[in-house]
């Protein structure tokens, strides 16, 4: 969610003025100090929404920093997304419900404190506790005792989760409320990282300059403008930073960041705006990356509105899905930085991870005649007009929403069958979505928290799940998800999740649109730039020439 379209021109003018001053000093490399192994990379950034507490950061920008400053039990391979042990020596279970976690010896925080079992258990208890009001608290919901420390209503009846027990310095056990064979694979999410004692002892000081156990340490942080990270030379892991540090600079508009990159004032932009894609070749040549990321865009519907929760409306939704010419929109509007979706997950999961190309089949393939037939059979669009709400401030959604509407209008032979409904700001838009104010469709998107098929299904479509904004509910789907979670064999669990996903084809609670790619451009000062499956740059691998 970046790019404030409204103030684009003004922002450009300011940026040009600032850049001019910066260049006036004669140092045109964007704040970097020399090259080689100690060279500093300057990169675009957005202001994090929340303070940088790991369990309170659920958006990309803050997550970027946590990924540099922290290491958890598990780390997702930057290339394949595969979950690999990092600090964990082993995570074992015989029944998919009781887990024993053993830590590797020799890990410390950058302030010298040892990383122990308590560093994890205390951090998780902090993140789950109701009084700490952490946004990611629900990630701990599978651990036994979560209901006592974070009840849905009323006050907490316990301080710590009973399911977590420290055995010794390097061992702890976790008991879950249900069988969940893939649980260890979720532990790479930033909410599960260990925290040093300083986090609790002097919370404010920690917030202004977070201390972690990752390859970088934070040198300085100016809220709203920049953060300077430097390599931690004594980092014990094997993914030591290959550059001297990273200077993150806040941009409110990715067009401005792109302009700064082409002007040589910035080394890395990790979100190239769609409107600049036609110039990328000329501006950057091969210094442009476009790789699949774990993000899917969808159209969601209000099932709390009676007229959308009928069997007729189900047909209409299927018809609408077939009325959208996905390849045309991804090719033209998005210049191939999106891939037409044919299931509800993401290609980054891989075939073994549960991604199945074409799972949705003909229901997600453009078919003009069939689409119109289904919509007419279903009694037409509820309310007579489909209004797709979107936020008008960031992310340039207008173009594709209009294109989707045009596609539907062409099918229906009616210029006003579908219209876009701009909502001023992202905050307002999210408020309307989460308080069930919208009565027609809205744009929705999901960026995975961890590369598991479970993460693409359960939080979004399970009855009353935290991100099930449309309040869709299907007993059969819920049962299959429960069954999949209880499955001790990973491959079986994934096929069961896929069975659950097949229900979405007929019910169509949301219409899958396209998989989003991550895009980045970089300057000729740096090399070895790559994006991980979360579309975040792999900073520690970047080398400076």
């Amino acid at each position: 969610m970046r790019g404030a379209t409204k103030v684009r021109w003004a922002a450009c003018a300011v940026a040009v003025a600032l850049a001019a001053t910066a260049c006036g000093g004669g140092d045109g490399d964007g704040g970097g100090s020399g090259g080689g192994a100690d060279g500093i990379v300057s990169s675009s950034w957005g202001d994090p929404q929340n303070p940088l507490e790991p369990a309170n950061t659920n958006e990309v920008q803050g997550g970027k920093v946590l990924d540099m400053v922290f290491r958890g039990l598990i780390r997702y391979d930057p290339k394949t997304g595969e979950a690999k042990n990092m600090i964990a020596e082993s995570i074992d279970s015989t029944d998919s419900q009781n887990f024993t976690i053993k830590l590797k010896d020799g890990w410390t925080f950058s302030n010298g404190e040892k990383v122990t079992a308590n560093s994890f258990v205390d951090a998780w208890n902090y993140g789950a506790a109701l009084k700490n009001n952490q946004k990611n608290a629900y990630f701990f919901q599978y651990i036994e005792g979560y209901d006592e420390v974070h009840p849905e209503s009323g006050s907490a009846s316990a301080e710590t989760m009973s399911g977590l027990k420290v055995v010794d310095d390097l061992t702890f056990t976790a008991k879950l409320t249900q069988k969940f064979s893939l649980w260890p694979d979720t532990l790479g999410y930033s909410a599960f990282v260990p925290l040093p004692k300083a986090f609790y002892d002097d919370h404010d000081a920690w917030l202004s300059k977070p201390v972690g156990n990752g390859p970088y340490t934070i040198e300085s942080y100016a809220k709203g403008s920049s953060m300077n990270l430097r390599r931690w030379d004594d980092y014990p892991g094997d993914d030591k930073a290959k550059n001297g540090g990273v200077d993150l600079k806040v941009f409110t508009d990715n067009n401005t960041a792109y302009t700064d990159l082409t002007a040589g004032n910035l080394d890395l932009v990790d979100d190239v705006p769609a409107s600049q894609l036609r110039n990328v070749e000329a501006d950057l040549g091969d210094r442009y990356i476009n790789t699949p990321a774990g993000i899917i865009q969808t159209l969601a519907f209000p099932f709390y509105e009676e007229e959308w929760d009928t069997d007729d409306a189900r047909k209409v939704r299927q018809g609408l899905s077939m009325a959208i010419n996905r390849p045309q929109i991804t090719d033209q509007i998005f210049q191939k930085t999106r891939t037409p979706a044919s299931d509800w997950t993401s290609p980054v999961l891989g075939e073994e991870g549960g991604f199945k190309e074409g799972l949705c089949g003909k229901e997600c393939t453009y078919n003009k005649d069939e689409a119109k037939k289904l919509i007419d059979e279903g009694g037409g669009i509820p309310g007579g007009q489909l209004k797709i709400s979107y936020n008008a401030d960031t992310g340039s959604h207008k173009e594709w929403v209009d294109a989707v509407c045009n596609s539907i209008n062409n099918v229906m032979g009616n210029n006003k069958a579908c219209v876009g409904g701009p909502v001023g700001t992202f905050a307002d838009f999210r408020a309307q979505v989460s308080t069930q104010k919208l009565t027609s469709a809205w744009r929705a998107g999901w960026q995975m928290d961890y590369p598991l098929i479970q993460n693409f299904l359960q939080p979004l479509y399970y009855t009353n799940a935290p991100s099930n904004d449309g309040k869709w509910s299907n007993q059969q789907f819920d049962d299959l998800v429960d069954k999949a979670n209880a499955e001790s064999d990973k491959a079986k669990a994934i096929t069961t999740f896929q069975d659950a996903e097949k229900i979405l084809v007929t019910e169509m609670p949301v219409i899958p649109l396209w998989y989003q790619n991550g895009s980045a451009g970089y300057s000729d000062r740096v090399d070895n730039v790559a994006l991980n499956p979360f579309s975040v740059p792999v900073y520690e691998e970047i080398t400076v020439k």
Partner: protein
Amino acid sequence: MPDTTALTKSTDASAAAAQTPSTTDTGPLPGKPRSLWSDAWHDLRRNPLFLVSMVLILLLTVMAIFPGLFTSASPRDANLAEHYLQKPNWGHFFAPDWLGYDVQGRSIYARLIYGARASIMVGVIVTIAVTVTGLVIGMLAGYFGGWIDTILSRITDVFFGVPFIVGAMVILTTFEERSVWVVILSLSFLGWTSIARVARGSVITIKQADYVVAAKALGASTTRIMARHILPNAIAPVIVVATIALGGYIAAEATLSFLGIGLAEPTVSWGIDVSAAKDQLRNVPTVLIIPSVMVSITVLSFLMFGDAVRNALDPKMR
């Protein structure tokens, strides 16, 4: 020549210059007595500025009422596959592909023609609404004076203090459906203040004129005095201010639509098109330039028109 026509003429002239009262009067040509209006028309007909702007305004008005005369293409027909950002084909005059296609694959020429309706509608209706509102308030305040004047003038001041565009933005954001009428309402709600001030000033000057005093002495009713003597003589400066403001309202509509809080799809508006095209400046500049030029031409022709009318009605400018 102390005939009545000349007397009216003389007072009319000072009324026209009510903002800065002046008695300079070049007078009509000897022989044939003429009113302020026929005099103004005499001037306007010979003013190239007026003729050019009049032609443009007529053209735009026809475009707004009968867009089908100019193009057979629909402004909402989108063909992404074939026409995404297609460059202009300058040789194909008035064909759908003449000026190229926008990001949605819609004919820019068709959108240019159909966009006139929203702009002209907003401009003309807002102008009429603010003129009527402003005239009524200004005349009441000016004619009756006293506490009525105090109250109405302070209300005018309050509205005058609200920044025009910001105020319109605030009003518009409270509406969920933003049609042309909502934009018209928000602009009219804030735009009448300058008209009211001009009308009030003009009425205050005229109400002391001999013929008004005479009418009063003869026992004419207030309504009759207002309608027969005050209004016809006070309206000239109001018309000048209103015609010049018209261009401003069109620009305001485009501005609000550009910011995404004025008109919304599927209404066709140049402001929306400029906004949608702004990221394409480096790729296909014509997508941005064509609707922008259209806004400029329209605003300019109404400003030129207003300017010409002012020159004709204000003897000081002769």
